[in-house]
């Protein structure tokens, strides 16, 4: 009788062991993952904000005072074109009848400053295919700086690597017209301020205003 009971108990224990192994495995796996999590780098909600602050500081250190104030006040940059006959023609250094507006994470907009006529949208991105931080997008100010560097260093190369579209595909032309008006008002106000400052003998701003070529 005792032997039979012992045998039954052993069988029951063996069956319970078999049933509980997957459950124990799951528990151990969850515990192992919980312990490993701090090393994986937990989500940091302030990371992108800090990245943008660093990007703004970097942009400020690269562009001149006028361009930095333009970006700070208006949210975009204007870069003069280098080809006298328009984007895509040979570089001749003869001046700039056209310019670009650089918006963060938006296409470059080529336009004629004299008439405010929009020419083209140049859709360009700076993707990092390795996606080391889970996102392929640069911080906004880094995107603006990358476009500024690529435009001022090698306009032709950047334009050739972009997809060209007619104006209005991504950026609302009404918004651009409004921004161009804001830009002209901003420039007028800045010029008045500088004249007043010069008259008061306070001198110019560091970096200074650079006229169109």
């Amino acid at each position: 009788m005792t032997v039979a009971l012992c045998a039954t108990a052993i069988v029951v224990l063996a069956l319970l062991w078999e049933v509980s192994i997957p459950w124990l495995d799951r528990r151990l796996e969850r515990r192992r993952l919980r312990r490993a999590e701090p090393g994986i780098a937990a989500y940091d909600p302030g990371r992108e904000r800090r990245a943008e602050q660093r990007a703004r500081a970097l942009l400020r250190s690269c562009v001149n005072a006028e361009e930095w104030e333009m970006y700070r006040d208006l949210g975009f940059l204007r870069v003069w074109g280098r080809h006298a006959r328009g984007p895509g023609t040979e570089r001749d250094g003869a001046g700039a009848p056209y310019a670009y507006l650089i918006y963060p994470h938006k296409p470059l907009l080529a336009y004629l400053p004299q008439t405010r006529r929009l020419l083209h949208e140049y859709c360009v991105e700076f993707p990092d295919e390795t996606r080391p931080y889970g996102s392929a997008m640069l911080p906004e100010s880094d995107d603006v700086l990358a476009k500024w560097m690529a435009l001022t260093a090698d306009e032709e190369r950047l334009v050739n690597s972009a997809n060209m579209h007619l104006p209005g595909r991504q950026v609302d032309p009404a918004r651009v017209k409004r921004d161009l008006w804001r830009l002209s008002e901003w420039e007028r106000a800045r010029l008045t301020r500088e004249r007043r400052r010069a008259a008061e003998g306070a001198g110019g701003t560091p970096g200074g205003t650079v006229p169109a070529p």
Partner: protein
Amino acid sequence: MKPGHGEELIAEGDLEVAEEHRALVEAFRRQLDDGMWAAVPTTTRTGRREAEMVQSFEDIPPSAERVIFFPRAAGGR
């Protein structure tokens, strides 16, 4: 520049020190091999700020204080 992260110091050193010079060249090549573009912010004689793309370590102007690496441009949507 790193997506989702922003500016990151890759390497710094003194070109006069052979070991640091070698480390800078290696870091430069590694970035270019990873498909990054390299640019040096400059100031022209007229005071205009612009950038200069560099494709080899020897192209870096001697007066340059830094080289900025950023992902290669590609046609966007």
